[in-house]
């Protein structure tokens, strides 16, 4: 998709003024974090599992080439195919060619953030191949021509009424002309409409949560069952996954699964966790005739070995955004590209460029709540700070900020000067603010006083002035 990350500040304005979005976010903030907390409490080993999950991903990244080759070997041994895509364009071309090789007119897609990353739908549509999103949330936003606003709950920004309106508009031509009011009716209508599309689809395209090197399996975690229909009913199954999704063994998968579902939705286990290994076997009554895995790099190999490497541990659970107060205020669309929230604030500058996405790692208070819930313990604030350092080194930091910082730094490195200037500032602020105790507006502090009063310091001077005076007294 086209990035609007550069317009972050405008996007924020839109988001804060959208009552439906704010309504949805108020539910998200309470619901996801509370469910995660309860799930973690139900499993005493949860923290130890997080440590292990981090170690597994670190081990894999240190041996990524080996595990990718091993994975490939196993896939081929069981009759599947592996395609290597250095760039998004390569992946789009490979997938389009595969679709055309079976004369595909429709592709049943199950939710894939990597497919969003490479803008696959737009590409397929241009070629006359209809991608059909089958995850309910993805289906809703596809009908509305919107990007996902959350990596595991793509339509989390919408209310039930908005979904009802969307369905009425798009399903009327299929004979559904009643506006629904109940959630279960909306789910049932989508199920009915999509069921036929599954049965008609020529290709099923899924992402993967993990690729298991030991067995050559792609592992998919879902709740709806749409990914499983996508990998079972059509005659070709394409798995699109980025290279860091590979893990060594099924034992490692067990550890990661235990932290994934609990971190994401607070479930003990997602409803469906599926291992797909190669195409239909002799004697099987169903399953695809062809099984293809497309391995996408898109810049990830270049992140290895850098100070940003830890972001490659991410298992896309969404816990960081569910617990992020900034995400909670503005939602996912404000971030302007595929990956929102703290993990997006680290990954997006990598994938679309730091010039385009410079606001994202800056729009954080470094409150650290994301890191405190990350199942693979990614130090997200530290990585956001690294982006700020890179921006600063490359002179991308806004000029006003640089100049202000330079001035502050000049003074802060001269304690004597600093004391004099703060004493003056203290006296002035105290003198004019004393009567009210606070300022309703202040020059150069419009960002503050637009929304808040500014507390005035009480009379008597700075701490250091008072302390020095007190010392001098006998």
């Amino acid at each position, binding site marked *: 998709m086209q990035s609007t990350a550069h317009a972050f500040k405008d996007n924020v304005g839109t988001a804060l003024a959208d009552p439906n979005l704010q309504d949805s976010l108020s539910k998200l903030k309470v619901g996801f974090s509370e469910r995660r907390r309860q799930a973690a409490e139900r499993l005493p*080993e949860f923290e130890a599992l997080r440590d*292990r999950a981090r170690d597994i991903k670190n081990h894999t990244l240190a041996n990524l080439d080996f595990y*990718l080759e091993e994975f490939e070997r196993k896939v081929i041994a069981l009759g599947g195919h592996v395609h290597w895509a250095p760039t998004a364009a390569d992946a789009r071309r490979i997938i389009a060619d595969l679709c055309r090789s079976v004369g595909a007119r429709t592709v049943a897609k199950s939710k894939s953030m990597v497919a969003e990353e490479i803008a696959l739908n737009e590409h397929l549509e241009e070629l006359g191949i209809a991608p059909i999103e089958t995850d309910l949330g993805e289906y809703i936003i596809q009908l509305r021509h919107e990007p996902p606003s959350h990596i595991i709950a793509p339509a989390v920004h919408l209310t039930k009424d908005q979904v009802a309106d969307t369905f009425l508009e798009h399903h009327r031509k299929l004979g559904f002309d009643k506006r629904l009011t109940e959630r279960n009716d909306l789910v049932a209508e989508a199920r009915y409409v999509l069921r036929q599309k599954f049965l008609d689809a020529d290709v099923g395209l899924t992402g993967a949560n993990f690729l298991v090197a030991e067995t050559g399996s792609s592992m998919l975690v879902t709740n709806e069952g749409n990914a499983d229909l996508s990998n079972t009913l059509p005659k070709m199954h394409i798995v699109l996954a980025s290279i860091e999704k590979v893990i060594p*063994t099924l034992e490692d998968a067990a*550890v990661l699964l235990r932290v994934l579902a609990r971190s994401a939705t607070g479930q003990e286990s997602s409803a469906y966790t599926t291992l797909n290994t190669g195409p239909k076997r002799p004697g099987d*009554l169903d399953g695809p005739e062809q099984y293809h895995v497309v391995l996408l790099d898109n810049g990830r190999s270049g992140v290895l070995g850098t100070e940003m490497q830890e972001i490659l541990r991410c298992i896309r659970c969404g816990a960081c955004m569910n617990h992020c107060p900034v995400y909670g205020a503005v939602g996912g669309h404000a971030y302007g590209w595929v990956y929102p929230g703290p993990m997006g604030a680290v990954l997006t500058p990598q994938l679309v460029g730091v010039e385009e996405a410079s606001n994202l790692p800056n729009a954080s208070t470094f409150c650290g709540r994301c890191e405190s819930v990350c199942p693979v313990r990614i130090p997200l604030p530290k990585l956001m700070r690294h982006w700020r350092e890179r921006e600063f080194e490359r002179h991308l930091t806004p000029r006003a900020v640089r100049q202000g910082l330079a001035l502050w730094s000049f003074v802060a490195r001269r304690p004597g000067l600093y004391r004099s200037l703060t004493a003056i500032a203290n006296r002035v602020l105290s003198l004019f603010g004393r009567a009210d105790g606070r300022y309703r507006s202040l020059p150069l502090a419009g960002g503050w006083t637009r929304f808040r009063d500014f507390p005035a310091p009480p009379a008597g001077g700075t701490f250091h002035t008072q302390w020095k005076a007190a010392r001098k007294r006998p």
Partner: protein
Amino acid sequence: MSTDRSQILNGIRRSLRRGELAGDGLKDVQSRLAQPPRGPAVARAQVAPADKVALFCQWAEFNNATVARVGAADVPDEVTAFLARNNLPANVAMAPSPLLEGYDWSSQKMLSIRRGRGEGSDQVSITGAFAGIAETGTLVMASGPDHPVSLNLLPDTHVVVLRETDIVGGYEDVWVRLRERYGKDRMPRTVNTITGPSRTGDIEQTIELGAHGPRRMHILVVRE
């Protein structure tokens, strides 16, 4: 393309500041693959054999499945009774499996059984299960001629027959069984681990059952 392949692999090696793995480094990862180390033991999965069944049932119900514990001779009766209790049609699609054929379905005069894969219009399916995981109340389905995957997914109601002896503690125990049964390098085409009915929280973060897969899951846990 082989050039794309080497571009990615060489890029990784460049970033890791090394060439292709060799020597001890290679031996280490190879032996890690050959003897996969387990993660931290989860106490809940280490339950005594006698408690496994109860734990499985507890978590399956927690995850919105219904469970009936029955003797082998009572399986067909329980299926018919379950369908009647829930006003479900007595037409079922059944997996052509030796396990299920071992029960006497001829006793169920009202029950009409079609054996084969799942179809879009199926209301009820009956399948066996490769294993049950007590830790989370999860069913493990291994695909094959005796177990079409579509039966797990297409019908509105999924009835699963699970033997008590096939209930294990944790995920790792299933991996051991899969390797024993299929060989270390040969997984079945699909292994579905299924925990309760299909669900979605995509509308206002409120769980609704029956998104694309079954909205109702009934598990018959069969005593020896």
